[in-house]
């Protein structure tokens, strides 16, 4: 039993999409532009050539925020979306009826339809591909060239993620919605 979360040193992101590729290979994600579990947000560039705002061009690596209070879980009529023992928000394909309420409810736009399994799928921190087999990292963290991601157990005070969150300033996305995300952006 753990409570998994992820800290993102987003300033190191170079938008190389290694994470997205590794995720797809690891989890056998269906190809197609909108079929993905993780992505890198690219904000619109501010300014006019040659006076561009470098600060506006930071990349925003993102994915399911693994909320402690997940709206997608709350609205799921069949309990296909559930919390597993490690606090990871998971989807049971057997129970999913493709009603897409979860897609509407998620404020982070983190769910997509997998046409093969007929499931509204999402990131599950590689629970069924890596963690279950004793790996301690997600595919995206392992592969990242500039090491943006730190994955670990938030309940373990000695874990690196716990230490980093104690030592460094960070924020989470749309916290005002009360979702209690477990993704932390380090500043």
């Amino acid at each position, binding site marked *: 039993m753990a409570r998994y979360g992820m800290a993102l040193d987003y300033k190191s992101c*170079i938008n*190389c999409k290694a994470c997205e*590729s590794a995720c797809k290979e690891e989890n056998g994600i269906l190809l197609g*532009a909108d079929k993905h579990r993780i992505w890198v947000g690219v904000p619109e560039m501010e300014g006019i050539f040659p006076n561009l705002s470098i600060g506006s061009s930071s990349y925003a690596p993102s994915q399911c925020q693994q909320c402690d209070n997940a709206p997608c879980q709350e609205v799921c009529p069949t309990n296909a979306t559930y919390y597993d023992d490690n606090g990871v928000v998971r989807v049971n394909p057997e129970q999913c009826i493709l009603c897409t309420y979860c897609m509407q409810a998620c404020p982070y736009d983190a769910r997509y339809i997998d046409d093969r399994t007929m499931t509204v799928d999402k990131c599950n921190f590689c629970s069924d591909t890596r963690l279950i087999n004793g790996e301690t990292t997600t595919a995206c963290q392992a592969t990242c060239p500039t*090491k943006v991601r730190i994955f670990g157990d938030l309940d373990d005070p000695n874990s690196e993620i716990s230490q980093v969150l104690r030592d460094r300033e960070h924020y989470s996305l749309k916290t005002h919605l009360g979702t209690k995300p477990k993704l932390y952006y380090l500043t």
Partner: protein
Amino acid sequence: MKTEISRRRFLQGSAALTVVAVSGAATALIEKEEHDKVASFGLRKTQWSDKLTEVPTLCEMCVNKCAAIARVEDGVITKLNPNPLFPKSRNMLCARGNAGIQALEDPDRLKYPLIRVGKRGEGKFKRVTWDEAYEHIKNKMVKILDEEKDNRSTIGYCAGEGMAEHTYVSFMQDKIGSSNFVNHATICLTTTIAGYTLTLGGYGQADLENAEYVIMAGANRAEAIVTPDTMDMFKRTKGRGAKLVVIDPRFTNTASHADKWLPIEVGTDLAFVLALTHVAISEGLYNKKFTQENMSDFEAYKKHILDKNYTPEWAEKITGIKANEIREVARDFMAHAPRSIYYQGRRTAWSFQDFQVRRAQAIFTAMGGGVDKKGGILFGKKLELGKHEIPSPSYFNAEPRIEKDKAAVVGTSGSWIAWRNTIIDGTAPYPVRAFFAYKQNPMLSVPNTSKTRQMLEKMDLVVVIDTMPSDTVMMADVVLPESHYLEREDPVKTFGGSEPSIALRKKVVDAKYDTKPVIEMMRELGEKLAKPLFEISKKYDEELQELIEDAQDEGGEEKVYKQEGYDLAEGYKHSQETINHHMVTSVYGEEAWKTLREKGIFYPDMDKYFKKKSVNTYQYYPEHKKSYSVIKGELDVEPYHDTCVDTKEIGVLKKEFRTATSKIACALYNLEKKKGVDAMPTWREELYTPTPQGRFRFITGRHGQFTQSGTSNNALLLDLMDENYLWINKRVAQEKGINFGDNIEVKSSIGAIQIKAYPTEKIGPNVVFFIHGFGAESSELTLAHHKGANDNMIIEDHYEKSFGSAAMHETIVDIRRV
């Protein structure tokens, strides 16, 4: 920070890639057997079966050779993960590294040897056995060499960078005996290698882990990934230890990490560097002790810079960069020196003045003292490997290369453009009648595609070795399919630098198709060619005739054949594994070999030094064991620790032109005297053409998810970006009524292409850009076929006259919406 989490798939449009089994959509010109079509594009979820094994190997999706661990389940690779043990790749695999599985599983791969049956370029082939393919090559070569009276140089050949490149080149160069070799260097990094080597004594390694101030000009390390530079740099930008100044006409992903981005007029970098130098000299900011002790002719250089009046105000008019910005950069650079680097760059085939740009950069870095010092440009150490000697015959009738006089210095790897043009313009002193290509796709990679086509059409024999049916494969007479990098063992490789190591590309899975590694091809082709070609030499080679006569009493012909290396298969007879075993154990012993095979990486004391520091970071060497400063006394270093350049060639270059080999050379008087190349970096107005009003300068570049044209058919990578787009300034686009996705014709003096528009403020009003590698014509590439545009259809075939390196950014284009 304002965080916009946008799921808009930027630059990918809404067109989702259709990923289906290979259908009849592409006309199958290569006769395919039905079962081939069963294979399909797509990803496979890890199953973690009981039969799981993990095999260390090295990636070949680009030139970096990052260490990977392949997860193999029931003989199938389900995931490639980074191997944390390799200092160079620092525990990472990029998008392309992850997509290696898709390259392996690509249903379009070349699966067996082919011989052309239709007209050349028509793409009609028949499947043949390996022996039939070799027999065909033999018959053609015997005829050609007989007619050319054993002038071996009538066989031209090219190679792309790769771990097996040397195996192929040694066969063509040393065994077949041709001088007409061209490789990627002159369409890539010749000018920067030559510039840094002739100035500092070596190209070196920028210590981006410790530098405090870095100028990256044109180099785009966030997208054109180089290991370990990319990882070291971007963990420390944005106020976290290293200041980064990006000089680039485009706002790249690298620029988004910059403290300062200065868009420059294309082709004016030399003026910028000279002005920085002027500031450092006139304000006395340089390292006086270092320049005095380590640099030759520095006083002459100072005088040169001041006499020429290369002031920031002068440079502003040329470069478009404000004089005060130039002053600030020069002052900041010197304030942080010696931990300041003017980054060397790699693909520096831009303009006519590229060599002098790199010379000026190297000298400017040295003026701060950042050479052979932590945080500067390092030379490091290299772990020697045992030798694998290949005896080579000398052919009396083999002529020197055809384009040797087309540039001041044409090395053994030639000048691609000059060489090709010499063949088609009729100025060659003798005909080049056969052409071999290994792992290079000149139809897409060399400026002016139609001239490359003309060159290939002139040949009596075209042989192409590759894994994919590229546009160049389509022009072949004989196609020899190479095994994929995950299906073969390659020559063991040593990686120098501050943290040196040895790495091995081990075979992960058995070859899926009737393909072979290069060493086997060379062995079998050698066996086929040796005797017939020896007969031709006997007929025409007077020296050989004499040798045989002299040896009459002691075995005669048979003895000469053996002793002089005419057995062409010799040197390729052992398996790669056997050769690697010898190269490692002869220096480091059996234990090292065992470690290398089990872990993929070896260096002395790895077991003691290697430590996990955190979930993401590792120690390879303790700080005091890193090779930061290696020069004791005189500056004379290993030429280059990289795979892209022939160290022998660089050795010759240094010997011939570095007047004071023990010091950093501000002036190369020998080069000026012998070859007419400016001894000191000098701005040449006549070599620069400003972009005319209302027209555009075309520039090309690399991308983080694609490696030239080599990855253009990769399903996973195309899922990230499905084609290339034309960057055009937003306001200019607006004036012309061009919107995102509109089809645009881009026309130069040599051709026109069509491509979709991407209006953006990230590029200036007089420049347009799209990435290289797209626009394949080959109908056998199901996903790449006619996707995006091929830049070399419009890039004019200019080359600079010092080293014959392509000048890819000297093309002016016009655009219109179609």
